[in-house]
């Protein structure tokens, strides 16, 4: 069955430190992969996406993610975290089988300490 796993429910990093959020997926073929961010009380906003080509993808707000087929992973990284990055981050896979359904991970909440 197709699935997305975000192993970390929450992560705390110091402002200025580097960040890596983990995402593993289970899917029968090369998926479309997304990272979304949700600020408190808001909807989700796309950070970046991978459809094909270069496996290192650049996104907004200084984020990047690397697709590793051998590890079925799509981890999100940022070299220096800002206090405004505190939010919940969702990894997603889709659309599945050429259809319309996107599967979201359970999310990782990022806390940033001064």
């Amino acid at each position, binding site marked *: 069955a197709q699935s997305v796993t975000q192993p970390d429910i929450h992560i705390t990093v110091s402002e200025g430190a580097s960040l890596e959020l983990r995402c593993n997926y289970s899917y029968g073929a090369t998926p479309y992969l997304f990272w979304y961010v949700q600020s408190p009380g808001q*909807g*989700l906003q796309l950070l970046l996406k991978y459809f094909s080509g270069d496996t290192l993808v650049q996104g907004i707000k200084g984020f990047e993610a690397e697709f590793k087929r051998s590890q079925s992973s799509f981890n999100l990284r940022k070299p220096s975290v800002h206090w405004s990055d505190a939010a919940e981050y*969702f990894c997603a896979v889709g*659309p599945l089988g*050429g259809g319309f359904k*996107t599967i979201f*991970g*359970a999310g990782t909440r990022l806390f940033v300490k001064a």
Partner: protein
Amino acid sequence: DVKVTQSSRYLVKRTGEKVFLECVQDMDHENMFWYRQDPGLGLRLIYFSYDVKMKEKGDIPEGYSVSREKKERFSLILESASTNQTSMYLCASSPAQETQYFGPGTRLLVL
């Protein structure tokens, strides 16, 4: 910029009431989606629509129905609200098989 709006940010209803949640997008997207978001469960798809008057069940359609009479508008209906439908409801739209654009969400409390 794509804009997806939802009719209410917060809603309080009583058990048994009929509840309408409205979603409007302004980018002529074919696809529209309704999700519910609960802590620790991520987003779960309730229904989606790929064209006017077309709809498909998602993973958790029980207790919900939808309506899409116009391309820009997708409504979620709780026929008889129950306390276990207390949740955050998110609407999204997308062009065919592409990035989804989300509304701000409606936080529904059923008493």
